[in-house]
């Protein structure tokens, strides 16, 4: 089902975006209902979409030989999933599996890239928004790197 600007406006990731931009993104978005245990994407697959999660949960994981799948991150309501479509080689770096029944807005990544090229203002704005998310994830990941709950050295 095509996403409406109403649905987009209420998602935390797009909060603050102007109406006109919301309308244009709405034309390349659909609301999807994802069943649990569905693979959204696999490592190495072409990356051409992103999802604005409205409810539910998706896990990013990676397959380690001899160990199986290891969960790297959980993303729930309000999160944006997927940015490998932003830069070459446009391939997914992890697997994504739906853990709970999830409602999300799926945005066509290729068309979104095209939109940004023809409208630099929108491109800049979206770039800023994605960067903010990236920074937050990076800081959280660095925190986990510290292994603060591990035994003292």
């Amino acid at each position, binding site marked *: 089902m095509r996403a409406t600007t109403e649905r987009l406006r209420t998602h935390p990731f797009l909060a603050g975006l102007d109406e006109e931009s919301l309308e244009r993104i709405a034309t390349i978005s659909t609301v999807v209902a994802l069943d649990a245990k569905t693979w959204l994407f696999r490592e190495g697959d072409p990356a051409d979409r992103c999802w604005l999660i409205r409810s539910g949960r998706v896990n990013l994981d990676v397959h380690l030989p001899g160990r*199986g799948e290891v*969960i790297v991150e959980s993303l729930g309501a309000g999160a944006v999933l997927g940015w490998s479509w932003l830069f070459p080689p446009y391939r997914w770096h992890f697997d994504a599996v739906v853990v709970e029944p999830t409602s999300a807005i799926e945005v066509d990544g290729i068309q979104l890239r095209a939109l940004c090229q023809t409208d630099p203002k929108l491109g800049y704005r979206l770039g800023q928004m994605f960067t903010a998310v990236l920074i937050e994830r990076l800081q959280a990941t660095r925190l*986990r790197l510290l292994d*603060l709950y591990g035994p003292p050295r």
Partner: protein
Amino acid sequence: MTMTPARYLVVDRLAETADTVTLTLEPVDRPLPVFRPGQFAMLYAFGVGEVPISISGRSGAGGLIHTLRAVGAVTRALAAVQPGAIIGVRGPFGTPWDLPAPPGSEVALVAGGIGLAPLRPVIHHLIAHRRRYRRAVVLIGARTPDDLLYPDEFDTWRAGGVDVHVTVDRADAGWPDHVGVVTTLLDRCITNPGQVAAYLCGPEVMMRLTARALIDRGVAAAAIRVSLERNMRCGIGHCGHCQLGPLLLCRDGPVVGYPVAAPLLAVREL
């Protein structure tokens, strides 16, 4: 305020994780005064030494429950004691979690790693007085699912009206809960920032960042409490080791209001 330990009998020992145990203790002689949530004891392993360990619960009349992690000579010795052994206990020491929280509060506990141990008695309080509070939430962060403390109690806590949310730093597939830092769960426990009463316990960095995240979401600094630690030798304010700036953490802590703690935690090597 004595330096002489009272004798306590180990009546139960539960291995929580590979390096953490929970001991249930009963007094051999006269029981010590009641330990309030947030306070700590100095636990003595005969001939090895003493360490400060927060209270994790009470057992019957006068019994104590302590969860401790084996990280040094004393804690390794304590973690190895079996039921029937006698250890030494001094206490209670320190400032407790300030309870009860104001009526109608959204009480949020955020626990990182072994930090859940000093918060466990607060959970018991929340269950006993659930109707006083609008919400009661505990966010638990751990390294991996194998490192979780008290996992068998989570459902009991939920049945008591406490929302329990768990996240780990990493997990194998099949882990049904969240993976990520504990601050990513904060939005689940704050519906009304002005009514939040927050109690944080865990590594210092985790408490600092969690407090900041709470404040960013509109929670007043004065509504946040943290549990701090420093080297302790006596527990009675005489040895000077546990200083953090003007605070003697055995006497002015370990529970400290965030407005007081924040500037002290911001100074390197204080």
